[in-house]
């Protein structure tokens, strides 16, 4: 069974005059478990919209999205929220850490909304600390985002994305706000940690340097 199945997907936007503007159209897309795929497309091609639909943040106008066998279109909004919290890890271009929380708290936050998993707080905290160590930030656990560089913030975001041992990691231009050195380091972390955890990875980008690190690169307009 594929980890992700997308069939006959359409996302349309209704214009003020009532006509529809097609933002995204995918006939078929399959992602196998633990696969690492890069989706390329120019700016405005619908890459972010694709990730929003896969994660259940946005509902498609047509078609189906199945994540680990569960058809997201059959779930309520609350159901999609829960599925997203438990199964998907997000890495955003602009990091999207909460300014009022420390690095450790931002990582743990990724587990708070994952539903009742009966896990002790101490276990979650230990796992968060381990992840921060893996991304090289053991000494920054109690620092707030404003005290960290952009590269460090993105590392915290990666740790947050992995806290729930997700089945799928969605990365939306994760190196878009970083310099060359940090881009390379962050990308390496995402690839290695995703591989180590057995999670599938779907990364969208328009950066050729990033595309070059993937064995499978798909053009959005061709799916």
């Amino acid at each position, binding site marked *: 069974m594929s980890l992700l199945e997308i069939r006959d997907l359409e996302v349309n936007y209704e214009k003020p005059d009532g006509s529809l503007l097609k933002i995204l159209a995918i006939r078929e897309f399959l992602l196998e478990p633990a696969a690492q795929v890069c989706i390329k497309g120019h700016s405005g091609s619908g890459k972010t*919209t694709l990730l929003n639909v896969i994660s259940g*943040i946005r509902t498609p106008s047509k078609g189906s999205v199945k994540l680990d066998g569960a058809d997201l279109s059959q779930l309520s909004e609350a159901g999609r929220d829960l599925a997203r919290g438990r199964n998907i890890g*997000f890495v955003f271009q602009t990091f*999207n850490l909460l300014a*009022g*929380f420390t690095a450790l708290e931002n990582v743990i*936050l990724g587990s*708070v909304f994952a539903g009742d998993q009966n896990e002790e707080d101490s276990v979650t905290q230990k796992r968060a600390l381990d992840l921060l160590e893996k991304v090289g930030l053991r000494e920054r656990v109690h620092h707030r985002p404003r005290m960290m560089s952009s590269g460090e913030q993105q590392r915290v975001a990666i740790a947050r994305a992995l806290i729930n041992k997700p089945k799928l990691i969605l990365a939306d231009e994760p190196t878009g706000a970083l310099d060359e050195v940090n881009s390379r380091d962050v990308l390496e972390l995402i690839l290695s940690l995703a591989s180590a955890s057995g999670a599938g990875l779907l990364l969208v980008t328009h950066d050729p340097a990033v595309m070059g690190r993937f064995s499978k690169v798909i053009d959005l307009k061709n799916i």
Partner: protein
Amino acid sequence: MTLARIIINNAKQRMLSTVLTSLSVAVGVALIIAILTIKLVSQERLRVGYSGFDLVVGAKGSPLQLVLNVVYNLDASPGNIPYSLYEELQKDERIKLVVPFAVGDNYKGFRIVGATDTFLTKFEPQQGQHFELASGRVFHFEEAELRKAMKDAAQRGTRNAERGEEKAIGGGKATPTVSRVHGKGDLVEENKGKEVRESVLGSEAALQTGLKLGDTFVATHGIQQNEEGEKHEDDPWTVVGILKPTGTPADRAMYINLDSFYEIKGHVIASKDEGGRMKDEAEAGSGKEKAKNGKKEEKDNDPEAGQLSSLALQTYGPFAVLGLLKEINNREDAQAAMPSAEIRKLLTIVGNVDRILVAQAVLIIIVSAIGTGLAMFNSMNDRRRDIAVMRALGARRGTIFSIMVGEAVLIAAIGGVAGVALGHLIIQLAAPAVQMAVGFTIPPWSFHEFEALVFAGVLVVGALAGIGPAVSAYRTDVATGLNPGV
């Protein structure tokens, strides 16, 4: 991490706004706490104060003034009543106990009350409670000494009148003029061989004045502390007893034997009747009654028969109270007042003021809560990204709603706790002034049940204030919040 942790972090992130809005809530809460605590304690103290007095009897005038004077040792006596009324009521079978009082002096602001030993040995300042001595003994009192002293005081009054000087007992309605009737030698001659003048102090009076057993003190004429007032230097009293606390206004009084009150040469019994009219006028105006009552009327108007400031009555039941109330009020020379009724009337008047003040305080809390909601609303633009991130991490709309309402409740709770503390601090700061005004202490740090209700109410108001911003957060579009350009 819990939702509570998220709420606390959100509030800390906007610390200035959180502190200012909490402070505004605290002000409203503090006002309510202070107003209602002072009101509740005052009502209770007033009730305790009058619980031992079925009726008070004094000169015609304001019943409330009479009650305040006799029961709470506040205000001036409305005037004097004939001693014969006391004798008459002593024989009334409806009355369990009647005790006489004479007032007019103070020591450092504490009321000096002339009384008989019966007051200290048989009167119940609260129902079922008697006075107890912490140390010493009750002063000596003899009826014969009292009659002699009253007679002497009346004769001094007559001589005063003849010389055009007038100074009545009671500290009366008018500010008395000071006049020395006798020289020092006269007092020594008068008091030759007499026992010391004795006083028993209320617990609070003893504590505040620092007087101990065996100490002497000199009274100042007048019912209020006045450094310029005439001091009865030649008539010192000796403390022979100190009472245990009773929780009533008696704690703040200094009791002296009634006969020694009249022995003060500055105290005279005026040569006019109890209605404040001169003796000749009284005889002309009440000719009918005089003809009817004969000798009794003459005796009442005879200053040498003695006068008192007031009487306190304990009766055998409510029917006795009502009967005596009517009969005494029908007299021309006295009035009776029921302390419970007069205090209820007073509290009704004051109660209206309380309600206005409490309403104002409630308005302050509501306005503060609205301010909290507005502050949160104004910060929604900053919060949208955070809300979108939490939604992207799996938070449901309802969870976001709860976080926002929770933050408003937290701000209200902080304000509530601070307000309770501030309210009690206000009470502590106001306590000395309250004690000076009404004679009893309000414990500043004792808590009452209503405070829990006030706190709960503040939380509810805070929650309501948070609903608006919470609805806005609930409706946040996640995709737009995460990626403003998409």
